[in-house]
């Protein structure tokens, strides 16, 4: 029983990271109807931004302070937001009027471009580096149960950001514009919505989320390298589809589900090697029986 609860805690910690990444996938999909495969690489860039920022912030604010950690996260998120908008401007905007498939393949290209450029020694190099400690870590023990401060921090941050995203999308003018663009780009632009600016904003927001996810992920496992985003990115993509792509709470639900199931599988001898198979198995089942995802609503596309 205790082991089950411990695995649940582990799974929540991991699942929240997937959820955070999945939020980024789903937001971009919601507005543009395509999967931004470069999202997982922006996550890696966020972790590296924090890696380079942390020593500077530490000099100014002292080691492992809460203010310092928040500052690092905000700066890294801002950097990644700019990178995200730049990617959109350079790679996706010129293809706005092309078929969706063209953009999708470009996204894969952008992802590979970032991964391989960063692996060059002149850029980041492909060696694993030690991620600095941003916050003092503490473990709380209840009998045999151990809850780390990061295990608490990650789900809390994820829920806060989910709330913030929901507020932005549902309650602000920008959010209304985002929903309008998502519904019908042409009609939105006829109503005076600056479509390009709204899409840029969506990319910035999604990339900032990726940066936060990257930093939290690196706090859990402090070894960072240019390919670190690939594996969690893939899981988060599955999570977004399972939860119903385009749906914000669905992304979080999917992320938690994948994270928890993966953790339980990882702890069972004989099954620990089949974690990827389990994640993809769920994806196939969902696509078979509930193609729109757990929380997605089936929409009829007019052809």
């Amino acid at each position, binding site marked *: 029983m*205790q*082991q089950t609860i*411990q*695995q649940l805690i*582990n*799974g929540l*910690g*991991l699942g929240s990271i997937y959820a955070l990444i999945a939020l980024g996938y789903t937001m971009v999909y919601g507005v543009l109807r395509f999967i931004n495969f470069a999202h997982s690489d922006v996550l890696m860039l966020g972790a590296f931004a924090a890696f380079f920022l942390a020593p500077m912030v530490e000099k100014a604010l002292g080691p492992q302070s809460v203010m310092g950690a928040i500052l690092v996260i905000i700066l890294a998120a801002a950097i990644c937001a700019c990178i995200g908008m730049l990617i959109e401007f350079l790679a996706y905007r010129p293809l706005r009027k092309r078929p969706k498939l063209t953009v999708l393949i470009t996204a894969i290209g952008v992802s590979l471009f970032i991964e391989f450029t960063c*692996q060059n*020694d002149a850029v980041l*190099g*492909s*060696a*694993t*580096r*030690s991620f600095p400690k941003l916050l003092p*870590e503490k*473990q709380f*023990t209840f009998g045999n149960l*151990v809850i*780390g401060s990061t295990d608490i921090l990650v789900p809390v941050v994820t829920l806060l950001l989910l709330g913030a995203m929901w507020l932005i999308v549902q309650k602000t003018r920008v959010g209304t514009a985002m929903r309008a663009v998502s519904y019908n780009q042409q009609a939105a632009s006829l109503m005076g919505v600056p479509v390009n600016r709204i899409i840029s904003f969506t990319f910035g927001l999604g990339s900032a989320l990726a940066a936060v996810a990257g930093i939290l*992920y690196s706090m*859990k*496992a*402090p*070894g960072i*390298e240019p*390919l*670190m985003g690939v*594996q*969690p990115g893939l899981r988060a993509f599955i999570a977004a589809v399972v939860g119903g792509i385009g749906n914000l709470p669905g992304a979080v639900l999917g992320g938690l589900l994948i994270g928890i199931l*993966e*953790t*339980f*599988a*990882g*702890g*069972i*001898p004989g099954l*620990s*090697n089949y974690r990827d198979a389990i994640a993809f198995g769920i994806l196939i089942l969902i696509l078979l029986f509930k193609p729109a995802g757990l929380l997605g609503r089936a929409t009829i596309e007019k052809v």
Partner: protein
Amino acid sequence: MKIRHFALPALAASIAALGLSNCNKGGGDAIKVGEFASLTGKEATFGTSSHEGTLLAVEEINAGGGVLGKKIQLLTEDNQSKPGESTNAVNKLISKDGVVAVLGEVASSRSFEAAPVCQDNKIPMISPASTNPSVTEVGDYISRACFTDPFQGAALANFATGELKATKIAMLTDVKSDYSKGLAKFFKEKFLANGGTLVTELDYNGGDKDFKAQLTTIKNGNPQAVFVPGYYTDVALIAIQAKQLGLSVPLFGGDGWESSVLLDIGKEAMNGNYFSTHCAADQGTPKMTAFVDAYKKKFNGKTPDAMAVLGYDSAMLLADAMKRAATTEGPKLRDAIAATKDFEGVSGKFSLNKNRDAVKALVFIKIEDGKFRYTATVNP
């Protein structure tokens, strides 16, 4: 116009002749030796260290007048620690650069990948530090300057039941690595024969970042120690997360742990853990002390690790075999390497057995106060 038509083929023929005569001379006045290593990527310190050791050896050989009256020219290729790249690297070294022998790699999976290319081209290959038995089983042109995993696995099993007095052990294996799976298998055989029990056996994929799922189950099995036959980037994260979960028993593993990055990432979580490796910079033999001094002088005061020592030994072994064979021809060089007896390496004195594997001692290292400390030597 007519003259040109004649001149062109003639020119081409003379260039071809020039090229051929160059080939016959065996690449001019230098002996070309190829090296492939993981200079970047996940196991970057393995390749960097073995490369630096090899570099130092080549420099010393050339300073001493070279081999067979010629200098050795080292050509190095990086495989970025990636599967698939080693075959390309070795193909290029052999067919484009025309090397007479190949040195490399540390990781068994990647040596295993390159070995068939060397075997097919009849080019002798010496792996400095791949311990999985299957590497030299590829063919008679492949040999190694290190011990193999049946020996290392058995030594680790004896260490567990002897030094650690642990009879209940959990094991966490990297299913992506031939090295990890091989070492786990040989450890298990000996450990069970010693009367120990494996309470938990779990897997991970090299490159994973979250090991809490496996570690929770391991903790629940109440082992006295955890055997982690993996590579350093993963082991460091495993150690950190084990500490976070309150798993306070020692972790121990094999020579895949040997890297300063293990301590950079793992920090204080690594203290109190053990691993076996080929040699230790502080083991105190005269050859080792001289090597450490020379290495520090060349590489800005950096302390060499076992991979650097083996890189050095493998190059020295090759030079020694070339001298004995008095030629760089593949078959004769192969036989000379295989006949190596009582070779005085920095890592210790060793001979090659009939499988062309070095028979030599291993050492145990304990991690204390963020440093590797030599604790014991185990003779074969």
